[in-house]
């Protein structure tokens, strides 16, 4: 099979490129378009580091043959608050120490964006469900969940998460079950 021209709308811009059949959306974003925020962690759809939004739905870009989404709208981390201030999710990730090595961060933020676009007031269970396909190996899931709930609060126009009183030394188990 020969290569074909594929069109996508990437972060609001129409883009065209030539791709061999079976080229993954991740390879196109990283190698053809130079958008490297989405990462290759496992190349088999199980770690979520390559998560981007295709027509507003989070997908693992390493599993998508790009010709199957021709014409779709793709959103990557580069398209979040591009050129401007951080958006609510990004600033909540910074303030809540929800990023450490940073390799899972792009995927985590993109699933958070999709979640908050669809549900401005998610529960902790909703957040856990949303990030359940994304592996983090160093930050830990708890600061990430706290950050996403905080981002929801900020996006609703409420003030950022109040500073917990220092005596609020709840155990990990208690926090998770909340």
């Amino acid at each position: 099979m020969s290569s074909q021209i594929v069109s996508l709308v990437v972060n609001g811009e129409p883009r065209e490129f030539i791709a061999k059949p079976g080229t993954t959306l991740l390879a196109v974003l990283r190698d053809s378009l130079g958008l490297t925020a989405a990462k290759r962690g496992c190349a088999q759809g199980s770690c979520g580091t390559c998560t981007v939004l295709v027509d507003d739905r989070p997908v693992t870009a390493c599993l998508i043959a790009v010709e199957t989404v021709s014409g779709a709208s793709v959103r990557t981390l580069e398209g979040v608050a591009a050129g401007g201030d951080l958006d609510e999710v990004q600033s909540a990730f910074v303030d809540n120490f929800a990023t450490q090595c940073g390799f899972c961060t792009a995927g985590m933020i993109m699933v958070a964006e999709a979640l908050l676009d669809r549900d401005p007031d998610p529960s902790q269970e909703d957040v856990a469900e949303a990030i359940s396909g994304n592996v983090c190996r160093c930050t830990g899931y708890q600061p990430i969940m706290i950050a996403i709930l905080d981002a929801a609060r900020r996006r609703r126009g409420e003030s950022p998460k109040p500073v917990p009183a220092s005596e609020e030394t709840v155990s990990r188990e208690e926090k998770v079950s909340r």
Partner: protein
Amino acid sequence: MTYRLAPIDKDSFAAEREDDFTVIGSVVQRSDALGHVTGRTEFFEDVAPPGMLHLKMHRSARHHARIRGVDLTAALEVPGVTRILTHADIPNNLYTPLKLIGVGPDDEPILAVDKVRYLGEPICAVVAESEAAALEGVARIRVDYEDLPAVFDVEEALAEGAPLVNEYHGRNFFTYEGHHCRRIRFGDVEKAFAQADHIFEWRYESAPIEQAPTETTGCVVVPQADGRLRIHSDTQACFFTLDNTALILQTPFNKLRIVGGTVGGGFGGKVDVVVEPVACVAAMTTGRPVKFVYGRYEEMQVSSPRAAERIYIKDAVMGDGRIIGRKVTLYVDSGAYARHTPYGTTKAAAHLPGPYSIPNVWADCHCVFTNRTPSSAMRGFGVTIGDFALESQMDRIARALSMDPLRLRLLNAYRDGDLKAHRKVAEGTALVEVIQKAAEMSGHELPEAYRRMSSTTREGL
């Protein structure tokens, strides 16, 4: 917005505190956080120089075998395959990473020569125009093996008649200054066993643990116009990697430049120098940039895990809970090569007998070679598994004596001024206070006598 989940404890060691901290107790934003949340942090694989070639490794399909022959014919016919490297292409093919601190002998080939010693050992490196062509080339290499008996168990490896894993060591263990293991001899444990009210002996064992970083091990090597090589790497140890790579390439250190420090998770799994040397040789022989990055399967199968350990602990214990003797026989599974495990085994010995004052201690800590994946660094390697065993032992003793496990530990915890088994005087100890605080926070009642104990006095002993 700043907050902390737990307050700083200012009560313990109050007399020793000055509280003039300028950073501890305040919240400081990570310097790399803005890059991470905007996707602008540059990881090594985000570098894509024009004309880059891809390297993939053909690996051993056997645990232990002699290599009778390697047939590259079909692999070289794959369109896009430009070069296949073998051991003959590596200037200094034999190394060990800790030679930088004087540990030897060199015991591991970069690419296998006449023998493989573990499943997944690198044999030939295929360099190609695309990742797909490199993988196709790897699949078409044919290796003719003559299988050898393999050994996967540390005690079997040390038994008479076990197959010899690594000829460079001559025996299936690492030799420490002429001794077959790292040893501790302090007091007389046999006398302690004779005097003890109880003797408790149990065995502990752990499996290898993979660090499983989200970013796999890899590098991109870019030849420079001035003849130097620029190495974009996710190593956790830039200078260690640079020095070892230079020794393997037999090139002056200043011919290499490492661009690193941005690591997508490492946890100790990215300190072995396993991708840079062969990628550098590929870049030197082709004059083009080369990327060598592990797939997830390689990361799981061949990146060096935390070592498996087997630990026997035999304790002489008095009726009141005082431990008067501790004998430990500890085996660390180094896999087929030394890597960082001789050092890890030394750390294991240094950590015995745990943070307790025990007057009679005997320990033999063996660094053992088997036909398993070479083990290496991971978060506190050499120490954490020993702690698992030691603290499990403490809990089991407490249970056997129907004693509160915290009181058992407080009774035996080392205090400032105690002579440890390594003939070092303990100073700055804090175990007593940590246990007291843990008890308080978890609502575990301690009698007044135990609450009054201190690391700096001998009260209550």
